[in-house]
């Protein structure tokens, strides 16, 4: 029989968990890197506090204006803004990553009630909730100053609104946790998210082309249905109180209570499922799978002159690209961006018509932009290796083979993407003439070969781990970003000078010759850099292994 005589109360459990969180934070600062992070956190916290305080003033002024001008129902706008902030920010901050920290508490002997209350406590502890509470408080002050007789209704409606928000946010979070526990679902959603962000770019051109400003926008027809959502209900409750309409007041407060009942009930069911041991593991059961015919190895279609390690790395890079939803979708970006830019800034169909850029200016500018996007992963090319990085150092190969394999694969991808984008460019804005076409291609070759050497150095010196299917924290290290930025500005500057020199001397073929020469020089530099980079890799292997296997 265990010695546990009496379970700690909910308040005691909350205190214990708050203490646990504090100790975790305190202990994490003992690491030097985390102390640097702390400075970043303090700076970010200062900026966030300024934003929250600034918006407190805005919410105060908005609420005061609506209430004193007898437009209490317009308070809905302010509550809608808070509602959207409260619900959307936690999802974006979670970054499509499964977060099991809260569920981990289940290994302790907690009651379901305590687990539920702890869940709500976690809900109040995030930034979106804290800032929303500040803004609601500032609106209450505005009510007390502007229309004190509405304060009791404001307090009641706000309380219900807060409870609805926190339970809804936890409910959504709990469902997302369940969905994101599955790797494939996580990757698919990240892909859809990126696609939806890209699609936003086309909203304006689409509205310009197909928008009908003679009639009311269709979205206006949706407004009456919004009146049954929490943000509008709070505004309507205040309007009813302002008009002394007790029936409408009861109806709106009742509406908020129904929302609270529904979200609380559904959240209870979700937490109950977790409490009873819901299985979120995605590890496949060890049952026998169906064995399909063996596929032909991809390396068998690779050119025979490649050494086995280089071919092996290229094949591995291909598999990783096709299994990384985010990277795979970014391959759609270049031709899509060419379409977008040409709709906006150039060609006969552009929105700015005769003010559009000429093909002579547009062609090299778009190519430079595409190279900027496509070469960026090279500056952290080991990001997704994870524990696999050890394989490179255990195998009897020089790092030069690994780098060549990775670079060759990237060059293939860039060539493929640029070819498609060039096709789209020619279709949209016309052929710019042979000299400019060839000089653009030669400049692209120079930009790619020129960058690869520095990119390899950056990848070995400033690695940063990334994980497929996650968005939070998935970026190159700061030094790698600035290195890429500096190199791209330098190469862009050189290319611009060469193109302008061609115009200055009146020779349209001069840039082609210069860029071919620069490419040859950059290629020579690249080949010469491979052995020193192998030596560097040997020196940096502990950093690479520690960073990527963490």
């Amino acid at each position: 029989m265990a010695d546990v005589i009496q379970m700690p109360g909910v308040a005691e459990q909350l205190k214990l968990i708050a203490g646990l969180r504090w100790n975790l934070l305190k202990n994490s600062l003992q690491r030097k890197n985390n102390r640097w992070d702390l400075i970043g956190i303090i700076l970010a916290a200062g900026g966030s506090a300024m934003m929250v305080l600034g918006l407190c003033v805005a919410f105060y002024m908005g609420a005061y204006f609506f209430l004193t001008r007898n437009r209490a129902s317009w308070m809905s706008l302010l509550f809608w803004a808070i509602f959207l902030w409260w619900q959307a920010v936690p999802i974006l901050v979670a970054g499509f990553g499964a977060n099991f920290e809260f569920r981990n508490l289940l290994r302790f002997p907690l009651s379901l009630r305590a687990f539920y209350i702890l869940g709500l406590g976690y809900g109040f502890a995030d930034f979106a909730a804290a800032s929303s509470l500040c803004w609601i408080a500032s609106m209450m002050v505005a009510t007390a100053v502007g229309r004190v007789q509405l304060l009791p209704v404001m307090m009641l409606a706000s309380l219900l609104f807060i409870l609805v928000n926190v339970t809804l946010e936890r409910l959504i979070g709990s469902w997302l946790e369940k969905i994101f526990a599955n790797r494939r679902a996580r990757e698919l959603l990240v892909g859809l998210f990126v696609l939806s962000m890209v699609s936003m770019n086309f909203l304006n051109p689409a509205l310009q082309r197909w928008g009908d400003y003679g009639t009311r926008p269709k979205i206006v027809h949706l407004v009456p249905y919004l009146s049954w959502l929490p943000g509008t209900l709070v505004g309507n409750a205040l309007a009813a109180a302002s008009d002394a309409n007790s029936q409408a007041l009861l109806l709106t407060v009742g509406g908020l209570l129904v929302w609270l009942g529904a979200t609380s009930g559904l959240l209870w069911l979700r937490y109950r499922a977790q409490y009873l041991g819901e299985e979120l593991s995605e590890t496949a059961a060890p049952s026998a799978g169906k064995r399909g015919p063996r596929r032909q190895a991809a390396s068998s279609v690779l050119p025979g002159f490649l050494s086995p390690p280089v071919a092996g790395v290229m094949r591995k890079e291909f598999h990783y690209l096709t299994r990384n939803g985010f990277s795979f979708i970014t391959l759609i970006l270049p031709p899509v961006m060419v379409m977008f830019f040409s709709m906006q800034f150039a060609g006969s169909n552009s929105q700015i018509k005769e003010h559009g850029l000429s093909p002579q200016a547009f062609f090299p500018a778009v190519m430079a932009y595409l190279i900027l996007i496509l070469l960026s992963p090279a500056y952290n090319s080991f990001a997704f290796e994870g524990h696999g990085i050890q394989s490179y150092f255990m195998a009897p190969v020089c790092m030069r083979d690994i780098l060549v394999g990775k670079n060759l694969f990237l060059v293939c991808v860039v060539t493929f993407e640029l070819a498609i984008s060039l096709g789209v460019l020619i279709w949209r804005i016309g052929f710019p003439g042979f000299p400019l076409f060839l000089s653009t291609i030669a400049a692209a070759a120079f930009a790619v070969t020129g960058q690869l050497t520095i990119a390899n150095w950056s990848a070995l010196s400033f690695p940063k781990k990334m994980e497929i299917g996650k968005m939070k924290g998935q970026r190159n290290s700061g030094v790698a970003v600035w290195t890429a930025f500096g190199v791209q500005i330098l190469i862009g500057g050189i290319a611009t000078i060469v193109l302008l020199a061609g115009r200055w001397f009146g020779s349209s073929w001069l840039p082609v010759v210069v860029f071919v020469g620069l490419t040859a020089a950059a290629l020579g530099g690249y080949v010469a850099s491979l052995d020193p980079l192998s030596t560097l890799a040997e020196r940096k292997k502990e950093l690479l292994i520690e960073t990527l296997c963490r």
Partner: protein
Amino acid sequence: MNEIAIRTEQLTRRFGALTAVDCVDLRVNAGQFFGFLGPNGAGKSTTIKMLTGLLAPSSGRMELLGLDFQRNPIDVKRQIGVVPEGMGLFERLTGSEYLHFVGRMYGLDGVTTEKRTAELLEFMQLADREKTLIADYSHGMQKKLALAAAVIHGPRILFLDEPFEGVDALAAGALKALLGRMTERGVTIFLTSHVLEIVERLCSHVAIIHQGRLVAQGSLEELRAGIPGTEGEKKTLEQIFLSIVGQSGGEQARLEELTWLT
């Protein structure tokens, strides 16, 4: 005289002020099944990492199959296979893709790699998971795959860091049989494990590292002979280990403090 497979001289690795491995002199003959033991944090994994090229030593010398590691890293790596701590797998490849990748990295031709990949997957009972990503493998399956990758090129020395951890009894039996056959053919196996019964059953020779220093090395009989005890009593490896690292009897005193539990 036996060929020496692994020889280290004054092998040392420091991390700042901490000396994780301190002047270790190892001798492992070719064809030995060698167990490398030590308590947590003793320096086992650091030593294995140095011997396999994952970590550079601060000082000292390593010679594998007569080749100086620092001078001939590629030639040495060509002849060794490793299951490192963390297993070193590319999780976004399938099992067969990973084995194919490793085969190519060791310079095997495409046909040989394909053949050995199929045979190893079959032996490790992973063939029915050909299209499953390694990320979706269980821990035991990942371990079996890491072992398959370590032997695909037919190494002469095999380094195994906790090879049986998480592997089920059936698979462990098959793996032990495989490793036994490999030593019969002259392959040297250098193994670390916390399960002393496994080491005792498999290994002919053992070294014990404690606080970074090599405190014992030799055949099991030699180590037994060095431990005082009753005449004729055959000491287990656990008794030898506890006696050498100075923990014997200490746990009894500590247990007595836990009166509420015992």
